[in-house]
């Protein structure tokens, strides 16, 4: 299941500067596992000690916040686009 993953600036030091990478996974959870295999250290940045997504990170599958889908269990298919986005302010 190759999907396109967009990496935000704060994580690019770990992806050797790449803003977009290809990764595999049946679900968001297993995708994070594959990201960790390719770029060791990435998982710790995304998940806290309890294995939950860190409070200030949002993950989107095809533009949709995974909290509106099945969270980390959200299924992925070929060609999906996943964005990792830090929380930002607004108004």
């Amino acid at each position, binding site marked *: 299941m190759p999907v396109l993953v967009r990496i935000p600036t704060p994580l690019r030091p770990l992806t050797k500067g790449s803003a977009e990478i290809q990764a595999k996974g049946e679900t968001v959870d297993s995708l994070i596992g594959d990201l960790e295999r390719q770029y060791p250290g990435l998982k710790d940045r995304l998940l806290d000690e309890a294995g939950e997504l860190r409070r200030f990170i949002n993950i989107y599958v095809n533009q949709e916040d995974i909290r509106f889908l099945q969270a980390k269990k959200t299924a992925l298919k070929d060609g999906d686009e996943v964005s990792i986005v830090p929380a930002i302010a607004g*108004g």
Partner: protein
Amino acid sequence: MEKLNGLRCRECGRHYAAAPIHVCEFCFGPLEVDYRYDVLKGVVTRESIAAGPPSMWRYKDLLPIEGDVAVGHHVGFTPLIRAQNLADELGCREIWVKNDSVCHPTWSFKDRVVAVAVTKAREFGFDTVACASTGNLANSVAAHAAEGRLKSYIFIPADLEQGKVLATLVYNPTLVAVHGTYDEVNRLCSEIADKYRWAFVNVNFRPYYSEGSKSHGFEIIEQLGWKTPGHIVVPCAGGSLITKIWKAIKELKTLGLIDGVSTKMHAAQALGCGPIVTMIKNDTDVLVPVRPSTIAKSLAIGNPADGYYAYKTAKESGGFGEHATDEEIVEGMLLLARTEGIFTETAGGVTVAAAKKLIERGVIPRDESIVLCITGNGLKTPDSLQDRLDAHVKIKPSLSAFDRALADLKSQTS
């Protein structure tokens, strides 16, 4: 005076040099400006503030600006009004309205944050500013960019009120209307901000931008004679304003400008978009995002970045929160207009409505002092009242027609 120490992660405390960055590389926590309070203590006094200009810049020492103010010289120091008519109507002893609906130049408190962000953008040498906005920020960024002779890109949800679209376009920015909710606009902007080297006031400039909201809080305390009120009711969207008012009060305490702090901070949101108030009511620090559906479009952020801190502010201060339905929002706008002669936008209606409910439920005792943060002007959202208001008398231009109409009116009301 060396008052700044760069930036500091609010979660893990890591330090960063002052730069246009907003998240901690390690834990993704938001970065905050780090002040050297040891240097500021004794230098910033009630007298030094009183000697400053009648604008938010009387608190410049407590804002992250090192050089001269570049834009928005007259922003802030808006009236704090003793709202006795409203207090009588709600059966309370003491209500104050902090009236940022007359904040210069674009009639919302967003001029405070933008004046700081655009000044900072100039300090860092940017030639383009940008923002994602629910309306008020759009107006303000476009105006201050014009004043500062910077290019601006403004991103808004395509269904924004016409008044807010026009009041942005008039300053000649590049306005991008996105088919989606504010939260979708925001996500897009975060990706755009990663790609283009612009000063996004609410993305890479967030640490500086958000500090501007503190001035709303400083002013309330100074205008109350350096006393803290019992309660402050604050409209919340991203949750930054309520967090920064609380921070402002605590800074005044740190600097020795006030003695104790006993203020309870209350969050006001629309029922159709109230994830922060839901956290407070359910007493959980986990935010569940929502898809907004409310007439209070300026507050329609379903995934508030500072939701966690807004919740903690209410909790730590002993305050609470309340939701307002669309109908209650309109009633709130009409109530403030009828009793105090202040026409606020839907966000102000949310504040008044939420305060009324908190008072009626006994969460805010009727004999304690209450400040309502009225943060935007009613002429920006006339659409919300369109169906509710109409001329009472329509006549031909003759005195006898008027006499008849007046007699009719009197018989109706007697």
